[in-house]
């Protein structure tokens, strides 16, 4: 048997990042920019994608670039009011790096966390 190449594509990295961030205690939601929201809606229309509850795919707010096999991720998010922003953000950052390495097999170049809002959950 010939063992062929395994390729994990950028959208997989995006989704890994988004789901990991959203499962981090203290993170309320991702915060997409206008352009990210427009791109997300367009993908929804062009792909004919429809989920059961009418919500958008969960990756808007995450930007991923893969250069020479290493992922650079930028995440814009909101954190629960009353939690330590640096602690929650650093936890999310570490969880994202771990998920990319362990679940996606990616090398990680950087994970930038942008805390756009602090809000009640």
């Amino acid at each position, binding site marked *: 048997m010939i063992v062929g190449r395994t390729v994990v594509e950028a959208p997989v990295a995006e989704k890994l990042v988004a789901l990991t961030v959203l499962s981090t205690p203290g993170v309320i939601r991702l915060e997409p920019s206008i352009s990210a929201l427009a791109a997300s809606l367009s993908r929804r229309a062009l792909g004919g994608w429809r989920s059961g509850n009418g919500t958008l795919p969960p990756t808007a707010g995450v930007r991923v670039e893969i250069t020479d096999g290493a992922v650079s991720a930028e995440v814009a998010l909101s954190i629960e009011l009353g939690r*330590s922003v640096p602690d929650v953000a650093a936890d999310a950052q570490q969880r994202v790096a771990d998920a990319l390495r362990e679940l996606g097999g990616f090398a990680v170049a950087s994970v930038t966390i942008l805390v756009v809002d602090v809000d009640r959950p």
Partner: protein
Amino acid sequence: MAIKGVDDAYLLPCGQDAAILWDHVALGELDEHELGCEHCQAASAGFLALREATGELTEADLAPPRDLTERIMRAVRTERRRDAFVPIALTELGPIRIAAQAAAVVVRFAADQAAGVISRSCAIEQIADAPDGWCEVRLDLALRYGVDGMAAVSRARELIDAAARELAGFEPARIDITVVDIWQEQA
């Protein structure tokens, strides 16, 4: 760059109301300011992309997401907040930054814990030439009629100092507080 209070969440950095700009984009009638302003031009481009995307949804006979309006306005706010971030940490994985307006939410929340104090507008600004995360805080607040004003302001300052460091993650190198109003409790 100075940041305005948190009450004007849907204003663009130039002061233009995003909802008005959205209407003008929809009509294809941008005014003189909007045509010449970099912030309005950037937001217009985003709005046009959004209109195209939502138009595609209609043509494809797909129901738009139920929370679309809220998401659009959130995106406008996010766009505006991207203009001013305060760096609060640099780990081996990369930077962590907080939007100045998000930091202002934490400061206002802290000040409101002082008895007799209601915060109004707040601005947070990274100090030029200071280490990352060293900021000036400017807070306007109102005092309840009858409280010891100086004691209340002093307590608010203590709470802001602690919250800035422990909750928001920045160093409040200077905290300027302006009392702008007195309010009375309803009987």
